[in-house]
């Protein structure tokens, strides 16, 4: 087992590109709102788009993790943040449900059969 664990570059790239695409899609929403005379999407953009995007960027730039579970928790958090970006109507529910991400990772690491677990983990862990 390696002493440190890091994200596969391809997984990082997918997360980064996904984040940019979602941020652009939400920006289009802002312009559509302004065209209809509503400034709500514009005012909400920093908190609901820029903030999660910054958190994703920070998580992607974190140094390697001491444990695979720690790295998978980061991956789970990134996926949750991408969902928050993609589903603005459910953002508050997704944010409140953040601890579930850690439970899923814990169950994944402790309950799943080792061969399946390792094969799935190799998709994101280098």
């Amino acid at each position: 087992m390696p002493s440190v664990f890091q994200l596969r570059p391809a997984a990082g790239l997918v997360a980064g590109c996904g984040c940019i695409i979602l941020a652009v899609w939400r920006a289009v929403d802002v312009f559509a709102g302004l065209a209809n005379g509503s400034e709500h999407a514009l005012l909400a953009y920093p908190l609901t788009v820029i903030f999660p995007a910054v958190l994703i960027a920070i998580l992607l730039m974190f140094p390697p993790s001491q444990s695979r579970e720690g790295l998978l928790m980061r991956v789970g958090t990134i996926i949750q943040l991408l969902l928050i970006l993609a589903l603005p109507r459910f953002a508050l529910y997704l944010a409140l449900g953040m601890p579930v991400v850690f439970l899923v990772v814990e169950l994944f690491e402790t309950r799943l059969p080792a061969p399946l677990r390792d094969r799935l983990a190799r998709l994101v862990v280098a």
Partner: protein
Amino acid sequence: MIELSLPVWLLWLLRWVLFLAPLAATLVLAHKRRDKPRALIGGLFAFLYGLGTIFVTHELAIEMGWWHYGGDTQMFRDIPADIWIGGALAFGPVLALAFPTVSPFVLLVPIVIGVHGTLFLSLPPLLFPGPNWYFGVVLVFVVAHLPGIYLAQWTASRQHLGWRVTLLAIGFGCLAFAVLPSAIMEAMGGHWALAERSPVLLAAGALAIGVCSVMGLAAVQMFALYGNGTAIPLDPTERLVRVGIFAFVRNPMQLCSALVWIILGAVLQNVWVALAALMAWVFVAGMVRWHHRYDLLLRFPEGWTEYVAHVPEWRPRWRPWIKHTATLTFDPANAAQDRIVHLLQRVGLTGLDIRAGGTCSMEYGCEAEGVHRLDGIAAFAMAIHHTNFVGALVGAAVLLVAVPAAYLRAQLSNLVFSARFGRAS
């Protein structure tokens, strides 16, 4: 006072800036100080403390009519969520990381007088000041901003552990029992409306919450007193703490939080708030166990394994599990001490060796667990932890008052001493 009439577009731009400027400043400053992890941890603590206390103080300000916010975008219980989070960043990590050695008082007074004092009346339609708004501003600064920056600075320099854990407990309390239930009710429906509840229900709820809080606060106190650290893994204890409430249950803080959410849910008649207790279990199963495996088990391999084998995670033991026997020394000639010792023996003691000695007050100690000599009421409070879980709660409640009181008394004596003899010399 300046009372400008700013154009609306400028106010909406201001709202962007009030969130994005602190966020950008935090990122830049954190990057600049990345070689100082304690400073970064201090900044994070200040942010979390601010998040809880700014919310509570602003709610109070709105309730008192000191001000209210305009607009209906991103409102979280009448507070714009972006301004709230931006404020917690600006008056937490930003000021703490930018001015690590400047007194928080010196930092904040010019802001209160210079910015708020002059521009507060120019903020409509973003914010509408009401009567006595200045009192509200001072309250927010004294309760939320000033302690937050002190917390960051003390964490960075590893000073004032007692004050740090106190501020962390206040911040956590505001986040867990004010912000989180509010967020749950925002998402799932419901409202505080405490005035609509019967006084009996409120009193019973307050009493039950008080009892549960003793358990959580006692855990925080034990970490500080005998672990020389905080309850937060980023600022961990230096030793494994197995005394006090930890001799009965492994997760007293999470148990306390879960019980308080259930009680709050019952008082507010909101099942979703009560179900937050389930989230406490999810958090323990997902995050806390991982932390135990990769931190405590590695730092204390033997001690932790043995502790886990004897002390349950959630359901407290009736009698404590004591690894190292502690000692209680008392004076048999003292009637009060003799009565207390007899009472303790009648209830039944675990892991406590009682010795007769010529001490003027009772003394308690357990060097192996890092508990150095305690005397008087604190010795009694620690001794009663050796009876059963109810005794431990009573002892914990006594310690929660006795230890800070003794500390404040000592500080006051030092102050008087230095004022008297410092001046004389």
